[in-house]
């Protein structure tokens, strides 16, 4: 019963907090650019606005285009249920295997890329092609740090990994741990579609990657996809924050109290906002990379992940 309650609570938290996080990042960027920037609540207002609008469907599209927003949203939502965000004993955390999480993201992306091709415009196709290429080369760099963590914990279940690290205390922060974190952080930028890899704010047809696939969407469907993108960003942050710095998370070892949950919520919010601000600072201090420079960056992150793995194996002795 407790697990069910916690799962629902975690889902509601994710649904409610994800747009706010995007708002905070936008605000931070505005602050560093000496602008006032949109209100923190703007993402919610946008979602509300989209929900009220008429949905326009292209005459060339098929049912793939129509079901994609739902498949995308639900796949991301399942990840939100299986990931250890506030607690490690959610109802579905037993199946929260790292491969399930990564491949659910891949399932969502697969459908979105198909939808990008469906309307028959060159922009959607271009965006699909680029998104799939970038995510494909990001995959090994994404997986290797996760493997290192899984091997260290003796399980590929994310909740299991988080509990292992949480119980390890400060000694868990080895050089291997930190290198692995930085490697995953770089991939996190790619997965959340931020500068220097993609620009979430652009609507210039030739430079956008992710936004290009949403170009033909409107109304309720756009609302769903936009919310899903907010949530995905939060989930990537959760992966980064909780896998490497899980302290504060509610785990069964500590016993359950309401205060535990409160601390967990606050701790996670603080970690996510902190990561978001770092991302914002990176975004305002860099220019977007040329598309074909991205592999170099991801290669670097892969090599860092490899170093992390090697030092983990050597240090373990």
């Amino acid at each position, binding site marked *: 019963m407790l697990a069910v309650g916690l799962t629902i609570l975690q889902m509601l938290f994710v649904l409610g907090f994800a747009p706010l996080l995007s708002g905070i990042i936008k605000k931070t960027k505005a602050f560093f650019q000496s602008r006032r920037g949109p209100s923190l609540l703007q993402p919610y207002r946008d979602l509300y606005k989209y929900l009220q609008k008429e949905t326009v469907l292209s005459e060339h599209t098929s049912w793939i285009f129509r079901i994609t927003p739902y498949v995308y949203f639900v796949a991301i939502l399942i990840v939100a249920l299986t990931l250890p965000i506030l607690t490690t004993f959610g109802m579905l955390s037993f199946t929260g295997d790292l491969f399930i999480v990564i491949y659910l993201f891949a399932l969502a992306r697969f459908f979105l890329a*198909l939808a990008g091709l469906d309307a028959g415009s060159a922009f*959607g196709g271009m965006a699909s092609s680029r998104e799939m290429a970038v995510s494909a080369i990001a995959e090994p760099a994404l997986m290797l740090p996760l493997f290192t963590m899984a091997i260290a914990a003796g399980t590929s279940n994310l909740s299991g990994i988080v509990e292992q690290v949480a119980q390890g205390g400060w000694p868990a922060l080895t050089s291997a741990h930190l290198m692995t974190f930085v490697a995953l952080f770089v991939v996190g930028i790619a997965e959340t579609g931020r500068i220097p890899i993609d620009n979430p704010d652009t609507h210039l047809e030739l430079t956008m990657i992710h936004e290009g696939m949403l170009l033909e969407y409107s109304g309720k469907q756009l609302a769903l996809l936009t919310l899903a993108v907010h949530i995905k960003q939060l989930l990537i942050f959760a992966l980064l924050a909780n896998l490497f710095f899980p302290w504060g998370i509610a785990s069964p070892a500590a016993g359950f109290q309401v205060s535990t949950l409160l601390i967990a919520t606050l701790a996670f919010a603080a970690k996510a906002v902190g990561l978001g601000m770092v991302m914002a600072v990176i975004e305002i201090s860099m220019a977007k990379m040329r598309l074909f420079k991205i592999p170099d960056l991801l290669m670097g992150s892969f090599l860092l992940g490899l170093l992390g793995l090697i030092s983990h194996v050597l240090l373990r002795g």
Partner: protein
Amino acid sequence: MTILLFYLVLGLLLLGGLFAYSLQGKPRLSLRVGFSFALGSAVAGTVLGIIILLTGDTVYTGAGFASLPGMNRAFLIDPLAAFFILVISLVSLAVSIFSFGYAEEYIGRHNLGILGLLYNLFLLAMVALVASGNAFFFLFFWELMSLASYGLVVYDHRDSHVRRAGFVYIVMTHIGTLFIFLAFLLLYQAAGSFDFEHMAQFGRQLPAGFKTGIFLLVTVGFGTKAGIIPLHIWLPKAHPAAPSNVSALMSGVMLKTAIYGFIRVVWDVLGGGSAWWGIFILSLGAVSALLGVMYALMQHDIKELLAYHSVENIGIILMGLGAALIFQGYGLPALAMLGLVAALFHVLNHALFKALLFMGAGAIHHATRTRDMEKMGGLLKLMPWTGFFFLVGSISIAALPPFNGFVSEWLTFQSLLVLGSAPLSLKLNILGPVFGAALALTGALAAVCFVKAFGIQFLAQPRSTQAAKAKEVPRSMLIGMGILAVLCLGLGIFPSSAIQLLNPVTLHLVGYGSVQALGGYAWLNPQIPLLPNLSYHTTIAPFVLFVVLAFGVLLVYRVVKWLGHGGTRIDETWNCGGTLSPKMEYTATSFAKPIRIIFRRILLPKRVVETEYALGSHFTRSLKYEGAVKPFFEDILYRPAQNVFLKVSGKMRLLQSGSIHLYLGYLFITLVILLIWAK
């Protein structure tokens, strides 16, 4: 009882072939009879495979062969053979139904009696090959399989490309067979018998060097048939050339008989070997998987694309086998079981989704008369069911949950992760996850490739008049595809059913059952004991995931409908104010361009642009673009080898003057030398 079922399988195939051939004067009847018998035998084969796998018994025949020297067992169906019979039968069940509709396009153009004969013989050879109890039978049926499939590859023999593809295929396959012959003759010499049972008793005590020799011979021999890189060159030529139902069988099943042979010799006869065998196989697998999927991305002939994906998937299977061999070499049977289950499960899954995709390609060809993806588009609206089944196949092969490809790749990932955490050498602990990353890249590139394959063919507007006029294919073809699509989903959400069936196989091969370690009904739950005090465990619940996904989509749909306002309007795609034409759509070539550029040092793309100017250098009259990927292995490996071969043959011609006296002289000299040597 079960042995009768086995004879029924063989008998139906033999009769089906003969009846189809004798009825060649009435093509429509010949077609129906030929494929009906194949269908009947497939049903019998499925039942046979499941019975043996559930009971775990071994069935054999033998008495009549006492008079043949070195052979006591004619056929011997142990759980391993039964599993492969099941794979062959399941695929041929669906493909035979598909063929009823598909083969009609050959009526009046080709001899359907020959098709029915070769098709049935091909299936017969494959079933008999995996059921062979001795090496002699194995080789006989292996050769029958090669010849029957050659006949099927060149079925459309009026096309010179097809004849050329057939030539490459038959040459390559015989080079492979040569190595297998050698390996079996050496084993015969050591064991004094052709029986696999007998060889297995001696095989484990053979000296290490001898074992390694056998291992390398079978790796090359079976590797040629399986299409591992760099022995794959026949595969992307032969598979597209054959009729699509045959491609489905070749890619889905025939390649797997090579995996069967490899497992039979390396595990059953040799009992595994040193750990470096595993590292070798793992590396071969990783290279095949990565290069296979990269080359696949560069193809825009749908069947060539699928053929390269077979190279990729054989690579993934070999990665599982390689991990298993490493653990076997370290004497850790429980872990070897995990790798074996991953590999064998992927054998089954690849057979299902690849046959499904090849049938889909056949259906598209049936409807549009082309295999060129650049000419298709918008087919989902014209062929809704074919499109749906092709989508299921695409999701499965891209290893996305909740379909079957995901589960077997997940098991492969797990065996590589265990390689990273088991108490082996430090080098292997690092190599395991790195191979895992290679597998991750493979999986992600496969997803790119199938977004391309499905998106370009089925979505947006038709790119040619042929595609615009396409019609849904006959019902029998849809049923054939539908069966495999259901199996893809079924095995994806109930993987434990396959684990259950594999239990006697792993018990037989490594002495460790798959159920006790992977267990569960609704979920897979590997509990891998690494050391007494250290274990590795994780869980996935594909069924739960599927239910949540399905209900989630329905729930979200209702909620959003309830929350939202405003209706739905159909309007045109935004195109900067211009009218949209199919020429503006992204093509298969342009879709793969980022990948082509990112991996340009591996793929070595070639690009020729010829511009013809009308006036000065500003007004272009015509523009010609040519792009291709360098056929690296053909240029580096095969062409020089071919040149050397031709040169040597040229020199040999000096010996052949045509004079009978000289030839008699040769005979005499040879005889004298032999007599001296024999003395």
